[in-house]
């Protein structure tokens, strides 16, 4: 997977709502972008250390305490850059691959 995609997805999820890692994992798995859970923990730590995220602890009913993450202003700025990067990538790839369907039409 291309570098930065997981960060992009994780920041997007946290941007929408305050969440804790298990909820992030659920969404990533449903989108089939992650099979192995352990990966996101160093990633979240790195984003937090980079000032993109902040968190607060919340006690849980019958389980261990939970870290609820929110995105910081710096994180929002970074997310906007990632958005742009993704859009640019998408249009670059499309401009090449859309021609594939044109070839099929020609050969028909």
């Amino acid at each position, binding site marked *: 997977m291309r570098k930065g995609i*997981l960060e992009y997805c994780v920041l997007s999820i946290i941007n929408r709502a305050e969440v804790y890692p298990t909820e992030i994992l659920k969404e990533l798995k449903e989108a089939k972008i992650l099979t192995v859970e352990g990966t996101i923990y*160093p990633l979240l730590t790195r984003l937090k250390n980079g000032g993109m995220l902040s968190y607060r602890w919340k006690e849980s009913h019958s389980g261990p*305490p939970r870290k609820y993450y929110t995105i910081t202003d710096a994180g929002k700025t970074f997310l906007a850059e990632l958005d742009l990067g993704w859009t640019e990538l998408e249009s670059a790839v499309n401009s090449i691959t859309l021609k594939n369907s044109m070839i099929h039409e020609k050969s028909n």
Partner: protein
Amino acid sequence: MKKVISMHIGGVLFNTEDSAYTLLERYFAAVEAELIKQNDVDDTLLDIQYRVAEHLNEKRNYSLDAVILESQVLEIVEVMGAPKNFSSKAPVQEVEMATSDPEPEQRASSASAEDLKLILPGRKRLYRDTDDRIVAGVCSGLSYYLGISDPMWMRIIFVLMSIGSGGGMIALYILLWIVSPKAETEQEKMMMQSGHVEMGNVRDWIDRELTTLRNGFEGFGDNFRR
């Protein structure tokens, strides 16, 4: 029939089989070793442990009386994934997408020679091996330290020399007893046996156990006595 260990993660009590506990210890040791290598430690290990605690809760249906089995811990370890994929410096290409690779498990478990490098390099340490002891595990630990395969030789030497030397040899034994610590945690046992906490040790071991679990082979529990 197995012993049960009472332990907690994040203040939540869990009862686990003794071999299940050992497996968790080894897994967390491997995770920690990998995180240290990448300077990622911080709270990350704790976060991972808390996630494992949530999995454990699910496995036992939130019932405090239920004893968590080794097979259940193996399932959790598989879901959490191999520590070598955790670090921030691992190229993101290594993250497996569910749809792209038909056999992601095989790719994750075939560790390259790079992955098996020493994590905590060092010399072999003298510990007492109380899992294999007659008195205090001194001869057992000393055998590991000196690279002798069977502790029986050390014991024979000690006994023979005690007969000749009066109290001297016994005093030496007691000295060694005092000076060498008991190898209790999995990390210490690895240091005693080979001098390093090697990713390969733990990962291969987990892989083997996952394979035998999948083959439905019941005898693997015996390997856990050490």
